[in-house]
């Protein structure tokens, strides 16, 4: 188990006695191999990240100065809406499904996902869904312009014609993520190698199991929500139309019943990934594994009873405000447990700061800042001031960019050697990290200030007094955006060559995925690994 394994013979390594991948394009269309599908998910997600990112560049270019310069308000609204939808459903969620496809079977010693053909189908629904969604931009009347939260009646009575295609796109991507979630849950519950008990699973597997259940529970509610919209628009019902006895506020309840668990869907897998990465580079086992599992489970549970913190200003009764305020603050407790566990893992560790670790440490620090602004927003009376301002934008970008996205970058750098068989360029990786770090803080930190001072979100123009901070934000955003092309370059360079990677390129890393050669052969664990020997092996100091 070391660097002497020749990557060209890896396909005939200890676990593999099948044929390799098919040749040509059809390999990708018809594949049922979890690694192929994982790769496709990751590339798809990256393409969406760049597309959604370009829209963010349009937004920041318009906001570079006060006044209207570059785009019309109608188009600006389409940009904010599509940016949000593409980043949430096209970039972050598929990236995690891609990581799950690649890593979950390898981490639990399974030969593949439990439902390989469904796996193929759930991936290929995504290009269809986003093709449809993006095509609405070119339709008469333009694409969705009602915000990624698509509140009715703005998204029903006052929506552009293309809203029907938007609804259909949401249906497709919903079906895709439900099938993906069922697949991951079935794999984790049924395909674990003998001896891989639940409490031995790596935390990435645990967080994905819980995320899978969250997805299965709330994606159908989102589907129901857009179905009601469809019926209001085309079949004369009035779920959300006050004129027919419905209620627009109902929309917000249904949406946020999905929406708040959704934000945890976007962060829990990242929690899992950094819980593997930090111990590897601190060369210490994860502090408080069991508490991590329970903290994740309680976050998931609590996420179902806090949704109305997005609705403090719609006029819910005082008792409701109090309930949702305290329930929301309660989430900070298990989240705090996690942050302290990561910090304790690093405490007195022999830390080195390779790129995955840099992204993970930044994750812990900056995600915590996002958590703090979340706590401020959770104070119901204060939220009357903060709601719908740039402060909210700062909050969710702090939890999503250095949270979800940095978690994905950290995972990518951590496992790239396993995927490609080569080490990535460490210097460029660090450059990518520092440029992203500086860029995102420049872009999003000033938003706290302009938000507190009252700058509303989703408006293409603003008061002169916000001009300086907005210019800084835009410069930071351009820097962050441009840097992501560097990431593309690093990944391509790593695929095409580089120092051959050892089976376990990180000396502190733990887990079954490091027991197979790098690059991981096309089929791994066709026969389940023997956990007992592996564990004996692990305690043997001479290993590796």
């Amino acid at each position, binding site marked *: 188990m070391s660097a002497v394994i020749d990557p060209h013979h890896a396909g005939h390594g200890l676990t593999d006695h099948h044929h390799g991948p098919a040749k040509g394009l059809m390999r990708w269309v018809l594949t049922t191999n979890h690694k192929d599908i994982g790769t496709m998910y990751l590339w798809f997600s990256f393409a969406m990240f760049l597309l959604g990112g370009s829209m963010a560049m349009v937004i920041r270019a318009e906001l570079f100065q006060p006044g209207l310069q570059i785009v019309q308000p109608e188009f600006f609204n389409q940009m904010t809406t599509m940016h949000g939808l593409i980043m949430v459903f096209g970039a972050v969620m598929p990236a995690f499904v891609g990581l799950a496809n690649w890593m979950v079977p390898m981490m639990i010693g399974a030969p593949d996902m439990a439902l390989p053909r469904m796996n193929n189908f759930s991936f290929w629904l995504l290009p269809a869904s986003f093709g449809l969604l993006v095509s609405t931009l070119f339709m008469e009347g333009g694409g969705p312009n009602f915000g990624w939260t698509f509140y009715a009646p703005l998204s029903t009575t006052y929506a552009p014609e293309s809203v029907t295609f938007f609804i259909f796109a949401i249906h497709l991507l919903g079906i895709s993520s439900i099938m993906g979630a069922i697949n991951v849950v079935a794999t984790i519950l049924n395909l674990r190698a003998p001896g891989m008990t639940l409490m031995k699973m790596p935390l990435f597997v645990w967080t994905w199991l819980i995320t899978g259940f969250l997805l299965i529970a709330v994606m159908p509610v989102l589907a129901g929500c857009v179905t*009601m919209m469809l019926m209001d628009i085309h079949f004369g019902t009035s779920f959300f139309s006050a*004129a027919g006895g419905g209620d627009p506020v109902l929309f917000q309840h249904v949406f946020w019943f999905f929406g708040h668990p959704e934000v945890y869907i976007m962060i829990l897998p990242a929690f899992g990934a950094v819980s593997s990465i930090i111990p590897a580079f601190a060369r210490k086992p994860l502090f408080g594994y069991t508490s991590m599992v329970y903290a994740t489970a309680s976050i998931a549970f609590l996420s179902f009873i806090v949704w109305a913190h997005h609705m403090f200003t719609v006029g819910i009764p005082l008792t409701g405000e109090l309930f949702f305020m305290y329930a929301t603050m309660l989430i900070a407790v298990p989240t705090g447990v996690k942050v302290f566990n990561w910090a304790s893992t690093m405490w007195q560790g022999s830390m080195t700061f390779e790129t995955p670790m840099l992204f993970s440490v930044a994750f812990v620090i900056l995600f915590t800042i996002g958590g703090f602004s979340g706590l401020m927003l959770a104070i119901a009376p204060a939220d009357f001031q903060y709601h719908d301002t740039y402060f909210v934008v700062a909050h969710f970008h702090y939890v999503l960019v250095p949270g979800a996205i940095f978690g994905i970058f950290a995972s990518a750098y951590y496992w790239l050697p396993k995927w490609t068989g080569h080490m990535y360029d460490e210097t460029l990786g660090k450059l990518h990290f520092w440029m992203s770090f500086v860029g995102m803080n420049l872009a999003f930190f000033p938003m706290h200030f302009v938000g507190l001072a009252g700058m509303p979100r989703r408006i293409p123009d603003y008061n002169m007094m916000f001009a300086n901070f907005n210019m800084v934000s835009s410069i930071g955003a351009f820097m962050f955006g441009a840097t992501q092309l560097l990431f593309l370059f690093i990944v391509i360079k790593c695929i095409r060559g580089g120092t051959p990677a050892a089976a376990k390129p990180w000396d502190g890393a733990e887990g079954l995925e490091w027991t197979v050669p790098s690059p991981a052969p096309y089929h791994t664990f066709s026969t389940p690994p023997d956990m007992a020997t592996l564990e004996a092996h692990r305690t043997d100091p001479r290993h590796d």
Partner: protein
Amino acid sequence: MTEDRQTRRLVLRLCVLVVAMFGFGFALVPIYDVMCQAFGINGKTAGAYQGDQVQDAERQVRVQFLATNAADMVWTFGPQADEVTVHPGASTQMIFVAYNPTDKPMTAQAIPSVAPSKAAAYFHKTECFCFTQQVLQPGERIEMPVRFIVDRDLPADVRHLTLAYTLFDITARKPPVAQATP
């Protein structure tokens, strides 16, 4: 293959969960309505009130009236007075006037809402034009009554409340029936 069978059973269960949650999304609609009714939240008022109350001559409550047109609604619509002062328990009437300035017959629906929302459960309408739809012929004008009782149990800290109507054009949904020939 017991493993296959196990997987199939698990997947089936998960699918049931998916369907159940899809249903739950729709179940939120009646749940929401029931909650609003039960707790009188969201300013929603109940249907026609049947009870009768003795008036509380000691206490006075100001009731303000608001009339708003939903977007695209062209009727003129408003109350005859902006405000009345009533005793809880007493039955009071207010007239709203609507006028259709167009050359087409139109149907409208008024949707009431009471603020502060905690007062909604204590605001009873015994008679209201919002219980039905209004059809107005071109140039027609009507007076529409609402008769209400403010409950004697209205929380003591509520000294004035607002009854707001939003008028929606629902001609497309409920076309006015052709006028009977005279």
